[in-house]
C-alpha cells in the first residue's frame, strides 16, 4: 500500500509548525518590523504574524510569571514580578526614499529598575520623557511613534 503525500499540504503544515516550535524563549525583547510583500513570521511575543503588502509593527514583550507563581511580600506587592522601566522611541522614514529607521531606547530591568525608580535624576528623566510623549500625542502629525 502506497501513501501519497500532498507536497503542498506538507509545506503548509510544516512552515507554521517550524515557526511555532523554533526560538520560543521567554525573554524581554523589543522588536520592530517593516515588511513589503508576503511575510509569515513569529513575533517576540510568540504570536504568528501573516501579512501581504505593506506592514509595520512594534512589539514589546515582557515576561510575566504565572499568577500561581507570584508570591506576596509584606506590603502586598508581588515579589517576583519582573520590573521594567524605560522609554522606547522609534522614528520611521519612508524606506523607499532612503529615510532611516532611528531607535532611541533606554531601559532598566530587574533589580536595576527598582533601584533606578528611587533615583531623583531618573525620576526627572522619565517624567520629562513622559511629558514629551504626552505633548506629542496631542499634536502628533509626525511619522513614527513613541
Amino acid at each position, binding site marked *: 500500500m502506497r501513501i501519497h503525500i500532498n507536497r503542498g499540504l506538507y509545506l503548509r503544515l510544516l512552515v507554521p509548525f517550524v515557526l511555532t516550535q523554533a*526560538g520560543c524563549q521567554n*525573554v524581554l525583547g523589543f522588536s520592530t518590523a517593516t515588511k513589503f510583500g508576503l511575510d509569515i513570521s513569529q513575533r517576540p511575543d510568540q504570536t504568528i504574524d501573516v501579512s501581504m503588502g505593506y506592514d509595520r509593527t512594534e512589539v514589546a514583550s515582557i515576561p510575566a510569571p504565572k499568577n500561581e507563581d507570584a508570591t506576596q511580600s509584606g506590603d502586598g506587592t508581588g515579589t517576583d514580578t519582573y520590573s521594567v522601566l524605560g522609554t522606547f522611541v522609534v522614528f520611521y522614514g519612508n*524606506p523607499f526614499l532612503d529615510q532611516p529607521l532611528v531607535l532611541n*531606547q533606554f531601559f532598566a*530591568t530587574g533589580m536595576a529598575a527598582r533601584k533606578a525608580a*528611587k533615583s531623583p535624576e531618573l525620576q526627572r528623566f522619565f517624567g520629562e520623557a513622559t511629558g514629551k510623549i504626552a505633548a506629542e500625542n496631542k499634536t502628533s502629525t509626525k511619522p513614527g511613534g513613541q
Partner: protein
Amino acid sequence: MMQSRGSIIFGCLGLLLVPFLTACVWRADDAEHYIGPVIFRYSAPPNGNAYVGQVVRLGVSAEAGTSWGIALGASERITVAPLVIPATNKDQTSSRGRWMMPLSFSPTPTVGKWNFSLLYLRVARDPGSFFLSRAIQGAEIVFGEEANALSVGIAHRTLFTPPDNAISRLRFDDNRPLESRATVWLDVPEHDGLPDSLLKEIAK
C-alpha cells in the same frame, strides 16, 4: 550548433559566477564563519561607541547553527554590542582580532570601512550583543534564535534584548549604523548616586 555552443558558454559563465554569488555562514556559539563572498564593516571602541558589525550578502546565501535558513537576494545583518560599565578585562581585550580573514592577503580588515571577503571570514561573537537588525530584499526563510520568518519581498526586522538587572541605553540609525551608541550599566548602587557616565547619558 551555434545555439548549443552559446548555451554552453553561458552555462560555463554561470558556473564561474556561482561561487561569487553564493555565501554560507555557520553561526556557532563563540564565532560566526562566513564562507564565500561577503561585504562587511565594523567598529569597536575606542573609535566607536559600541561594538557594531554589518555584513551584506548577495545572491544565494545559507545559514546554519544557531539560526537556520536560506536567502535569495540582498541580505544585511547588523549587530550591536554595548560598552559595559564597569568594564571587565575580557571586554577590553575582546575587541582585538574579532574580525579575521585568515585566507586573505591582509587578514585584519580595516575598522570603520567597507571590506570584502571572498573566501572566508571569521567573526568572534560580540560580548553581550543585545541588538540585532536583519534586512532582506528578495526571499528568505529562516528559523532559530534570531528570527522565525518566511519573507518574499522586503523585510527589515530589529530585536533589542536588554540584559537582566542592568540599565541599557541604545541609539541606532540604520543609515549610520557604525555611529550607534550602546551602553550597559551593571551594579547600579541602591543608595549612592548614579554613575557619572549614566547621568551624562541621561542629560544628552
